[in-house]
């Protein structure tokens, strides 16, 4: 990105359609990073004006005003004042406002104008405003504000050319700010009075409230009884769909993996290098990549819930339940996002006003079973079930997710009590955006980003671990043709034996311990480690391969002939994976967001010990029944 380009900043309230406008202006030409020193996402891109002039676009964090001291507000204000290191002061600001909600959104526009930067107002969602019966007068609004006002409908690409026209040279002059004259303490009141006066002349509302489709839907979806039924059914449907729809693409990936392994086997002479490529790399990385369809589907559904407006309703419904855990409904979104990945979930805690509630939410977020645990569950759950119906699997998975969630809420309640009461009472308030059709471009971009980061992880961390594992299993050579003897003699065999005292009480041997150990870098590695440690040979069909793997695990015995992978042992493994924090990037994000490595280290230690104790208890309880 060229540093000499003139910069346009996008400012606006949450739910003003800033992201949609950003995508409409830049298309796929965008970069995502963080502002220096903080974990606030910084999106930038480039676009051309109709005259061919190239401009750089920076998306500021959404906020209602610049007066507060939240991280988002500080970053937005500092960028506009040119106080962020490595971030040039914008040459012009596009203030994005929701046309149907000008009474709220124009307050921020006035504050943007006060920073002394040229401003263009993008009057977004004009279609929604007109449907609601508002009589908009962009010309009048422009005269009142002293800056150009361009009506746009970002989700349909309308008004984008006109907006780009307004950003041509010369940029509009800096507007006067007569409302700033007067006592400093009353400036907020003067801004609000001016906004109300402007709305009276430029955005007149119809008398009386007109009931919208969103109102009608909310009557049902926020109903204390029907709303909950709809919520639970939605969640169940999502889990069922993930396991049903992913089956076909998973088969394709497995077929591709097999074809590649056969091709390499046929093309290369037998030896360590071929074994490394076929068994280590293709087998190890492939066994993780196969779960990509499920991860894509999970993010797709979360994106659909967010962009349709239902996520806010879920937070509203959950407020009562969250209250029992000492949290507010606002903690629901970060926790729900953590089902996909704890990292964005923990970053989403920034929307929580209370610092104590935020810390508590961050602490328990990794207990929402994230997508990285899916591969582990998918290997272990079939071992528990004699029936393989999709519904039974979905119910078991639902129970796994419920167990993690309920534990998280109980621990949150205890922790929140330990942190003490709030200095200032915090109240629940939440904007319920209108229901909208899915914004497919946003969803696909979001899903593609997540899929790519998963593949990147598979191609780097998991690739490296697969190679290391292969080497650790292959060397030193025992000289025997018996694979079991070779494994015992290898580095991994020796290290793995050291873990046995810790995992034996959980009903596992050293191989289970080794798989747990390697999965501390990334949970997904568990599957590839198990595949390599148990040397399951590929069959002609996927079903046969899975059957062999399950057979292999179910037939595995202790030296005294007892079965190893009994139901209690599988349950203890599952419980361990539900509770263990086996993700170093998550710990790094917790440390940055909480501003304390102690908090992150404490969380890691607590969760590891808790996971072991819970697995131990689960194993011994299960022994009573099976």
């Amino acid at each position, binding site marked *: 990105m060229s540093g000499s380009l003139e910069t346009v900043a996008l400012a606006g309230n949450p739910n003003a359609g800033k992201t949609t406008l950003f995508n409409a202006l830049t298309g796929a030409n965008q970069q995502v990073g963080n502002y220096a020193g903080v974990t606030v996402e910084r999106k930038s891109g480039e676009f051309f004006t109709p005259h061919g002039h190239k401009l750089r676009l920076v998306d500021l964090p959404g906020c*209602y005003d610049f007066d507060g001291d939240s991280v988002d507000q500080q970053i937005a204000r500092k960028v506009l004042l040119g106080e962020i290191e490595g971030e040039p002061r914008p040459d012009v600001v596009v203030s994005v406002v929701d046309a149907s*909600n000008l009474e709220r959104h124009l307050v921020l526009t006035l504050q943007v104008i006060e920073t002394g930067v040229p401003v263009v107002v993008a009057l977004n969602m004009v279609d929604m405003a007109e449907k609601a019966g508002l009589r908009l007068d962009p010309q009048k609004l422009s005269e009142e504000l002293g800056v150009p006002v361009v009506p746009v409908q970002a989700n349909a690409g309308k008004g984008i050319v006109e907006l780009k026209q307004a950003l041509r040279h010369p940029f509009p002059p800096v507007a006067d700010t007569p409302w700033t004259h007067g006592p400093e303490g009353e400036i907020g009141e003067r801004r609000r009075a001016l906004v109300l006066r402007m709305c009276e002349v430029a955005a007149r509302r119809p008398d009386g409230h007109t009931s919208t489709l969103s109102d009608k839907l909310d009557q049902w979806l926020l109903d204390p009884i029907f709303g909950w039924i709809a919520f639970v059914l939605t969640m169940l449907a999502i889990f069922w769909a993930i396991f049903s729809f992913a089956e076909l693409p998973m088969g394709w990936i497995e077929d591709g993996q097999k074809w590649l392994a056969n091709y390499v086997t046929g093309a290369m002479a037998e030896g360590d290098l071929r074994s490394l490529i076929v068994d280590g790399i293709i087998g190890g990385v492939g066994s993780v990549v196969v779960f990509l369809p499920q991860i894509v589907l999970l993010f797709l559904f979360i994106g659909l819930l967010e962009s349709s407006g239902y996520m806010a309703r879920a937070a509203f419904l959950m407020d009562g339940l969250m209250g029992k855990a000492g949290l507010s409904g606002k903690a629901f979104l970060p926790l729900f996002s953590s089902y996909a990945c704890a990292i964005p979930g923990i970053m989403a805690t920034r929307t929580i006003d209370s610092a104590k509630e935020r810390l508590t939410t961050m602490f328990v977020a990794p207990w929402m079973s994230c997508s990285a645990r899916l591969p582990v569950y998918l290997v272990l759950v079939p071992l528990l079930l004699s029936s393989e119906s999709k519904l039974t699997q979905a119910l078991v998975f639902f129970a796994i997710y419920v167990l993690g969630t309920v534990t998280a809420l109980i621990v949150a309640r205890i922790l929140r009590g330990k942190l003490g009461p709030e200095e200032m009472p915090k109240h629940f308030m939440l904007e319920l955006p*209108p229901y909208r059709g899915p914004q497919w471009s946003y969803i696909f971009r979001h899903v593609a980003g997540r899929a790519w980061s998963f593949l990147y992880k598979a191609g780097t961390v998991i690739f490296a671990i697969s190679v290391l594992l292969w080497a650790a299993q292959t060397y030193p050579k025992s000289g025997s043709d018996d694979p079991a003897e070779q494994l015992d003699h290898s580095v991994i065999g020796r290290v793995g034996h050291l873990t046995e005292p810790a995992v034996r009480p959980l009903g596992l041997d050293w191989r289970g311990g080794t798989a747990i150990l390697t999965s501390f870098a990334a949970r997904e590695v568990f599957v590839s480690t198990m595949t390599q440690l148990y040397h399951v040979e590929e069959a002609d069909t996927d079903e046969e391969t899975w059957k062999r793997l399950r057979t292999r695990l179910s037939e595995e015995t202790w030296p005294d002939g007892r079965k190893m992978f009994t139901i209690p042992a599988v349950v203890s493994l599952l419980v361990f994976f539900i509770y263990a924090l086996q993700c170093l990037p998550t710990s790094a994000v917790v440390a940055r967001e909480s501003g304390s490595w102690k908090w992150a280290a404490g969380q890691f230690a607590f969760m590891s010990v808790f996971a072991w104790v819970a697995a131990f208890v689960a194993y011994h309880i299960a022994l009573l029944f099976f």
Partner: protein
Amino acid sequence: MPPEILLQTHLNCRTIAAMAHATAQELETDSLLSLSQAKVGCDFRIKFLNGPACDQLRKLGFCETLQVRKLADGRNLICSVCGTRLALSRELASQVMVAVA
């Protein structure tokens, strides 16, 4: 009429007017109700905000003279103000004083 009597009469009139104004204000306040007490499905006009969360409420769009409609009641209630649906706790809603529109 001597000037001091005129002045005294004028002051009396001003006092009576001020008292009448205060009484009228009290009566108006008595006729107000908080958003948490308001009836679901009715339109109201915000008269004033009264409580520690005033600034928070103003940022959300609860400003004097604006129209608000209560859409649902409960632990958290839902209302529509400036075309936006907002969910807020009963404690917050009790700080928004409204009168029938």
